[in-house]
């Protein structure tokens, strides 16, 4: 049966080394026409490296690659595009200073002559309308001004626009990581339509439900190898998690009744655009969720709380030191020139001092403590932060915040592109720290994560529209509030 499907792309024995690290260790992988292949595995399992090879951005150190049955000897990005293979990478790649239309033009050299900007705008607008109805993005918007969720929508839509080059296979690397449940659903149903019309997709996601429901076949990677590959119907969640290794089975967040007595007030905040009396209140030891569709004022409120900690602001009361875990880590979190240890230490410099000078020993101790505690996978914390995979970079940002003196931790959708094993570890850590009295304000686009929260504020158009206790929390309720007309 499988043989009957013509291969779009096939890799045999692909290998890749980065120094001593074997990112890929002899991987066989193929995608057939009209097939959606789900690719799962922990951070650092080699998924992204494999996809870089399919897209032509990385050359294998060993093995062959064939497209539509023809061996490709000098495979490259240009060749991949010529053959109709495109990729939406996890690290968003729009030029921030260009408009949405101009960014679209970059992928379509054939849009030349007078009026190219208008034609590019029409092209991307039509595709955005098709995939994400009511997307609210204008083709004239400058990419850098869009929220990370909207940038991701543009990026995905752009990959599906069509001019001269053919389009056979689109690689979607964590396409829903910055999207809320509603938009993610729109994207996934579009993917199914695309596949139904004979296109092919590779879907990488840490949200296992997405992969199970939308892929035809699932490939599981671990430590640079393919460890399982089978029809999607042959997998269930537990088998997937077991194949990935690590986290044992699916654990539902323990909902044991937490102590009901209220702790000291930590944060009281009213969003700038709130017209009624609703406000966010967080007390010591609480985990508070911020939900709703992406980009509806959750991040703005977190940032307002963050600045209110340094300088008093009207409508916001903060009574303890604050730290923030960025979700958009490239622009809000990472210091690219620095080592992992320095990236962790920056929030705690005052405590790392010995007299006037920062003590290298204390800085190393802090880094080593969190390396163990949160499981950052690296041989040496003095390596550059970019030697880590995306999920491990995110762990370093968690370590920065949790290793600091902050009693209030703001989390700006920090689990983007983080594998399930890491997530479960971090959830445990967050609950453990909350039990010690820390307060967490947690904006997330993944409804599942809200299970960890004591109560949840739902946002719409920059306002709080609902305040749900944990026991009344359901996905339907959140979606209902997000779309409701309640002011």
């Amino acid at each position, binding site marked *: 049966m499988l043989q009957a499907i013509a291969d779009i792309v096939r890799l045999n024995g692909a290998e890749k080394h980065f120094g001593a690290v074997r990112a890929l260790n002899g991987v066989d992988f193929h995608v057939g026409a009209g097939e959606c292949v789900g690719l799962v595995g922990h951070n650092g399992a080699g998924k992204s490296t494999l996809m870089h090879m399919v897209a032509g951005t990385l050359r294998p150190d060993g093995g062959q690659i064939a497209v539509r049955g023809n061996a490709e000897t000098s495979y490259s990005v240009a060749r991949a595009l010529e053959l109709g293979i495109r990729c939406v990478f996890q690290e968003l790649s729009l030029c921030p200073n260009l408009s949405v239309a101009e960014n679209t033009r970059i992928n379509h050299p054939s849009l030349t002559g007078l009026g190219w900007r208008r034609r590019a705008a029409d092209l991307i607008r039509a595709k955005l309308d098709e995939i994400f109805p009511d997307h609210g993005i204008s083709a004239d918007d400058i990419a850098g001004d869009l929220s990370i969720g909207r940038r991701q929508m543009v990026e995905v839509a752009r990959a599906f626009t069509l001019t001269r080059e053919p389009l056979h296979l689109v690689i979607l690397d964590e396409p829903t990581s910055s999207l809320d449940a509603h938009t993610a659903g729109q994207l996934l149903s579009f993917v199914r339509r695309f596949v139904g019309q004979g296109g092919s997709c590779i879907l990488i996601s840490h949200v296992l439900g997405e992969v199970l429901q939308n892929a035809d076949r699932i490939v599981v990677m671990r430590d640079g190898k393919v460890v399982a590959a089978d029809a999607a119907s042959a997998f269930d969640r537990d088998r997937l998690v077991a194949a990935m290794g690590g986290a044992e089975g699916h654990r539902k967040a323990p909902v044991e009744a937490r102590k009901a007595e209220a702790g000291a007030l930590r944060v009281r905040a009213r969003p700038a655009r709130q017209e009624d009396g609703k406000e966010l209140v967080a007390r010591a030891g609480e985990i508070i969720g911020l939900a709703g569709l992406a980009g509806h004022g959750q991040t703005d409120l977190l940032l307002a709380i*963050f600045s209110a900690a*340094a300088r008093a602001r009207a409508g916001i009361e903060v009574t303890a030191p604050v*730290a*923030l875990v*960025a979700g958009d880590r490239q*622009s*809000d*979190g*990472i*210091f*690219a*020139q*620095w080592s992992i240890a*320095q990236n962790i230490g*920056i*929030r705690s*410099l*005052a405590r790392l*001092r010995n007299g*006037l*000078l*920062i003590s*290298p020993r204390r800085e190393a101790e802090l880094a080593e403590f969190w390396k163990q505690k949160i499981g950052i996978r690296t041989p040496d914390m003095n390596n*550059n932060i*970019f030697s880590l995979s995306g999920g491990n970079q995110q762990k370093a940002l968690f370590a*920065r915040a949790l290793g*600091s003196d902050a009693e209030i931790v703001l989390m700006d959708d920090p689990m983007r592109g983080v594998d399930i094993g890491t997530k479960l570890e971090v959830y445990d850590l967050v609950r453990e720290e909350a039990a010690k009295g820390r307060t967490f304000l947690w904006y997330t686009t993944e409804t599942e994560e809200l299970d960890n929260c004591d109560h949840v504020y739902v946002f719409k158009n920059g306002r709080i529209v609902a305040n749900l206790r944990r026991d009344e929390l359901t996905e339907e309720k959140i979606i209902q509030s997000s779309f409701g007309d309640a002011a």
Partner: protein
Amino acid sequence: MASLRMLLEKPWIWSFAGALVVWLATIAFTGGYGAGGMVTAALSLAVFTVIVGVGQMFVITLGPGNVDLSLPANIGLASAVAMKVMGGSDSMIVVGLLAALACGAAIGAINYLLIWALRIPPIIATLSASFIIQSVDISYGRGLQIKPPPGFADFTNLQVLGIPVLAMLTVVFTVGAALALQRMIYGRSVLAIGQNIRAAWLAGVNVGRVRFLTYTLCGALGGIDGALLAGYFRGANVDIGNEYLLASIAVVVIGGTSVAGGKANVPGVWGAGLFLVLLLTMLNTFGVSAGVRLVLTGLIIVGVITAAGGEKAVR
């Protein structure tokens, strides 16, 4: 062998190598004559570039667009202020130095106020400030040709075993600056801001205060430099700082500090300062005319920056 490789990976090693090559070329030309004297002279003159170079290094490290173009005017004004306050009297030396320091720091603080309050790009703010400073200097110092107090002039020219005392003190100062850059909260904050100002803010760095301190520090170093130059050249004058516009930026870049910000080192400022002075001496020794000398200096700086600045982008 391993330590040699480590040494070669230091970004500042190339500026010292350049200085050594230029020195060797010159004494090869003179047949070994004046080798020691050349080093002494180079140290004496490099001091002035190093002092402002360190200030400029901190400013440039704040990130793209940050630069202090008011240094020449600042040096000119501070030299006049220092000489006027000292008034030729040895007892007023310390007061005069403090006055120059305060004058420079005030200029730096005003620079940052322009940048912060009016949101003017630093390049424009410091350049326009420098016109104002220069005008003040012209009206303040008109017709004055105040000599430094003899004690101060002697001090700036003092040597021990052929090494200028000023150079020794500057070495102490630069060691302090290197510690501040790598091991103090201030330096870490500057480096963080230079890499990603938004991430620095979100990591709890007090961005406004650190930028203010940096511009003020750079101004103060320009001020003290003006006073020392007036002592060394025996008199203040409006144009005394002119060559330090290009020189202060050149030593930073040649020394291996990233123009894109976030990455800096202090030793390179020394190496590059020596390199620039020795380069001039070499061209003088070769008997090159002034015009050609300027052209060659410019070309060499461009060449060095191209060769040393071919930094691989991260990812």
